[in-house]
């Protein structure tokens, strides 16, 4: 909310200059600096640059309860504002699926689209004995305590899920014996892994790109269907025999109460951003892979995802 005052002032100023056009607002449900903030700022900037909106999109940071505060605010207080978009990602659906938003459910808003995804990765230090995903899974099977994972999300979060999904796929079921520490973001997780405090890092491609170029780490698996453009030498988990696909999509949701016409309008604008050169460049610079799903198609993808994660979380014992 810290940018709100400024945003309000600027909005007022633009209204005075530019007539009655009302500015769109994008809520980033976190402090500046994270993925949601990036989504809002980048999409907001491109929306304005390509002329999809008349006035700059105002970004409001509303950190709280891992996105839960923004979610409840939108559902309870701002349910019919058609100029409002909210940044979302896999973390949003993971938490909704695990009932971590104080009883809120995924059908209380409308998911309007995703325009890019950060492929999940499993990373080890450059001098690690593990050359393939298989090496690591075998080592864990032999001694579950010997490999500790570090990731940027809390216990039970999406980063934690990734290695568990791989291990389940590899036939290892005692997932509660796997050590995982949640630290402050992917870069911190890499620092712990390069420092030798943990044996592997689980995170997103964007978090590891610059460390990869520097030679500190090796990515032993990327969790996508196919190898990621630009990183063709990194094998997928799938081709190593572990059929796990886990990407952190970046997208938006809008309030439930807006009309279908407004929903379609946002879907169309998002498609415009997805097709722009600016977004292609932003994706390339930040290690995102193309992943465009808008409108009703995306809504059904999200519904499926929530159901899957919910089932898996129960199986994993993260929720009852």
């Amino acid at each position, binding site marked *: *909310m*810290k*940018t*709100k*005052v*400024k*945003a309000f002032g*600027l909005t007022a100023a633009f209204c005075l200059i530019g007539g009655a056009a009302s500015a769109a607002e994008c809520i980033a449900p976190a*402090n*500046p*600096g*994270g993925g949601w*903030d*990036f989504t809002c*700022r*980048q999409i907001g*900037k491109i929306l304005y640059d390509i002329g999809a909106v008349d006035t700059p999109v*105002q*970004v409001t*940071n*509303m*950190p*709280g*309860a*891992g996105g*839960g*505060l923004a979610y*409840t605010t939108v559902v309870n207080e701002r349910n019919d504002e058609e100029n409002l978009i909210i940044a979302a990602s896999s973390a949003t659906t993971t938490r909704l699926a695990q009932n*971590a938003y*104080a009883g809120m459910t995924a059908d209380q808003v409308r998911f309007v689209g995703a325009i890019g995804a950060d492929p999940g990765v499993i990373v080890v230090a450059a001098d690690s004995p593990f050359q393939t995903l298989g090496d690591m899974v075998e080592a864990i099977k032999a001694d579950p*305590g010997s490999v*500790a994972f570090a990731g940027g999300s*809390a*216990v*039970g979060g999406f980063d934690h899920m990734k290695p568990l999904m791989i291990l389940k796929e590899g036939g290892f079921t005692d997932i509660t014996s796997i*050590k*995982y*520490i949640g*630290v*402050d973001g992917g*870069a*911190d997780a*890499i*620092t*712990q892994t*390069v*420092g*030798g*405090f943990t044996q592997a890092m689980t995170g997103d491609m964007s*978090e590891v*790109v*610059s*460390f990869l*170029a*520097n030679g*500190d780490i090796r990515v032993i698996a990327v969790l996508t269907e196919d190898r990621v453009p630009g990183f063709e030498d990194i094998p997928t988990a799938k081709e190593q025999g572990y059929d796990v696909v886990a990407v952190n999509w970046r997208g938006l949701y809008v309030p439930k109460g807006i009309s279908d016409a407004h929903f379609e309008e946002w879907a169309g604008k998002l498609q415009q951003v997805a097709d722009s050169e600016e977004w292609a*460049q932003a994706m390339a*610079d*930040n*290690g995102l892979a193309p992943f465009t799903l808008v409108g009703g198609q995306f809504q059904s993808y999200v519904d499926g995802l929530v159901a899957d994660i919910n089932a898996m979380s129960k199986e994993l014992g993260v929720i009852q």
Partner: protein
Amino acid sequence: MDILSNLALGFGVALSPYTLFLAVCGCFLGTIIGALPGLGPSNGVAILIPITFTLGLDATSALVLMTSVYYGAMYGGRISSILLNIPGDEPALMTTLDGYPMAKQGRAGDALVLSGVASFVGALLATIGLMLLAPSLARVAFLFGPAEYFALYLLAFCTLGGMASNNQAKAALAACMGLGIAMIGVDSSSGLPRLTGGSLHLFDGVDFLVAIVGLFAIAELFFFIESHGKGSSIGVALDKVRVPWKDIFDTKWTMLRSSGVGFVAGILPGAGASLGSFLAYMTEKSIAGPNGGFGTGVPKGVAAPEAGNNAAAGGALVPMLTLGVPGSGTTAVLLALLMTLNITPGPTLFTERPEVVWGLIASLLIANVVLLLMNVPMVKIFVKVLMVPAWILLPGVTMISFVGIFSLTGSYFDMLMMIGFGVLGYFLRKLDVPTVPVILGILLGGNMEDALRRAMILSDGDVTYLFSSPISIGLWVAAILGFVAPMFLRNVLKKPPAITD
């Protein structure tokens, strides 16, 4: 020389009339933001980010503006600490301990100039350190695992005893209170909410800015009301503002040592400027010994935390630029700015985008000089604030605090909580329990607990893991000495209290 040519490149990028103008604007805005209670460097920078887009600034100009605001806020925080005994932002907390007593002795001008110079020394040395050592220093972060971090925070708490109070037990009690408050919120290791009473507002814990403003500003207001507007501690004697050359000269070693301590604390990801100023202050306090007069308004007690927090601000840029790990809240915001400008900090930034890195370093140096020039002559303006009678000043400060906190969180709940902290602060002061350890508990408690929990997960609950590396053993030894030594030394060193300055 590689560095000189790089620096020339940086100044070539940063030194144009337009960017200089931005630097001056940024420094001025930053100083004001820092000085206002409730508005710290991180929200200051966050508020101003949209401006860089609206103005259509390129990467370098945006960086110059934002780093000027960042450094400016680090300078500005000291002003309200010294004049009002209300820290302008969390790293300026330690400056209240000696800055305010010094102002009450009628040396407000001296304290402001001295702390301005100390800030300059700290920031300048840190920028030079960043310039010379950043790529190699980044490796330091790889040496710090959960066990080492736990020992580091333990060191901070162990040296806390007796601070800001004559009674160690009361200081310890206050620290425990802070640690307890730090436990509120979602537990990061299990994802379960603790002590939240089911309220979503408490899921992220208690924001320390809310606590600071409540414990200092609101509590002050209650005292003011109690005394019916008379005898408030606000309203200190004024003297002519001149440059206290003698104090500056006397504190030169303090400034240099504190800059070193602060810089190292800044480099460690997550430790940040608050820990930097705290460790700098405690180091100087222990060097000066019990007769150093720390806490009563000595120049060294003003110079140490200011040099420390500004050096830490520069140090925090090291892990941000070289690893992409922000060392403090503000650098997290700067990281966001860089990423929106499509610059991804990380190990390759120095080689791939030298114009950005060296432009940034050049702009830090420029901002620093601008701030020194701005802060020393302009100190009179800030001292003039004191001429305003307390019955205008205090409600004004309170109002600004409320607006500042509301702009930060946008939640009425935080307003109520702030008043709650005000009540707590009022009673604590009545009972002569220091409030600074409470804040430090809130500020560092969460990190300390996370470090312990992570260490326990990695070691299967094996306690010896906490002493398993030379670094952690060293920190433990220092922590235990810091805790035990004062108890014995107090009797051994019982000399007549000397007036040191």
